[in-house]
């Protein structure tokens, strides 16, 4: 009886030690794994299909030109398939425009959503929502709304002071019929890039996750 009790105690002790060792090993493994993730903060499951509407930085000049041609071919194809359907496009101008030149270049029959402006030759940009299809008043209204005079960020303040009198337009996003967008493709002063990606739309459907188009127009300068 005494021996049996002693044996039971040994078994309990062995069980307990085994349990503690197992827990310690599991915790250590989890800690190592989690620490690795924490250090890197790896995001394992994207919750959105994010699409760059613009030229990927790693593309060569040749590849970039090919990309532009392909994108405009897609716009032309859209016009053949569904001429009256409205699509959204990012228009990048090959030179800086003032508001009059911008309106003249786009012509009639487009709804302007965003206008991209900045001081030529300087790094940065401002992206402004256009209301009532009026680029001029939308820019003026936005810049007037900024309380930069009281900012303690001197870089921002200096940029704003320069921008209000010296801005130029380098891109817009617009809605227009596919026919209209196709016509704009014939203008050598601009690059028409549909805000659309067939494979991305497909992936969005397949994975049942939203899609986000990032409009990324290059400025006519080397400085972006």
């Amino acid at each position: 009886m005494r021996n049996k009790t002693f044996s039971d105690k040994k078994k309990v002790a062995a069980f307990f030690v085994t349990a503690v060792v197992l827990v310690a090993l599991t915790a250590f493994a989890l800690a190592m794994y989690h620490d690795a993730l924490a250090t890197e903060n790896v995001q394992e499951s994207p919750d959105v299909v994010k699409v760059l509407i613009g030229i990927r930085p790693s593309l060569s000049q040749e590849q970039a030109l090919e990309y532009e041609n392909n994108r405009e071919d897609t716009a032309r194809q859209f016009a053949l398939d569904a001429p009256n359907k409205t699509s959204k496009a990012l228009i990048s101008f090959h030179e800086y425009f003032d508001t009059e030149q911008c309106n003249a270049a786009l012509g009639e029959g487009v709804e302007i959503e965003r206008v991209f402006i900045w001081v030529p030759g300087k790094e940065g940009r401002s992206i402004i929502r256009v209301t009532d299809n009026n680029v001029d008043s939308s820019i003026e209204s936005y810049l007037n709304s900024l309380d930069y005079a009281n900012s303690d960020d001197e870089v921002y303040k200096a940029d704003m002071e320069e921008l209000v009198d010296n801005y130029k337009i380098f891109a817009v996003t617009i809605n227009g019929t596919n026919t209209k967008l196709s016509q704009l493709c014939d203008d050598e002063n601009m690059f028409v890039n549909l805000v659309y990606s067939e494979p991305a739309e497909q992936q969005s459907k397949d994975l049942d996750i939203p899609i986000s188009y990032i409009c990324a127009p290059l400025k006519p300068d080397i400085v972006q």
Partner: protein
Amino acid sequence: MKKKAMLAIIIALIMLTSTVSALALTGYTNWGPRIWTPYQGNASISSTYIRCALMKWNQASKTAYGIDDYWEFELRDDNIHSIYNGFTGSISNLPYFYEELNTTGSDNDDISFGVWHIKGITVEKSYYGQLDYGNNTGYYNYISHLLTFESEKGIWGIFDGLPTHYEQDTNSLRVYVATSKGW
């Protein structure tokens, strides 16, 4: 004997649960800033803007970024589009700057601005980025509401971008009450 065995199992389970719980509370939400984030900056909010200013990157970060990497500053909350509505414009001295306000297909929980070619930044230059909301009234319906801000780095693939790293500050910005956080 059985009681002792049960006790040992219970103790073991408690230890395991506590360890996992402790681990689950760390990691993804802690703010560095690590190499993928500007080493200094100041995130701020008001009823009319979301801003991150005085941002500086060091040479180690610039070197670490790949040519097709992007970076984003995000403000996150389940109600973010109720807190901020009526976007009027965005502005930044960051190169390759973009805005990401809405996604289609379902609700989303963040408003962001970013840099689609983050390797193009200049080391030690002071950068700012700002999203503006004119007559935004939603903000005042969420006074004291805690918001999360996040630094995210990702990479552009053939047609889409994949987030790869992020870090979050979940405890600093409260609507109207605590409106800026520097690091």
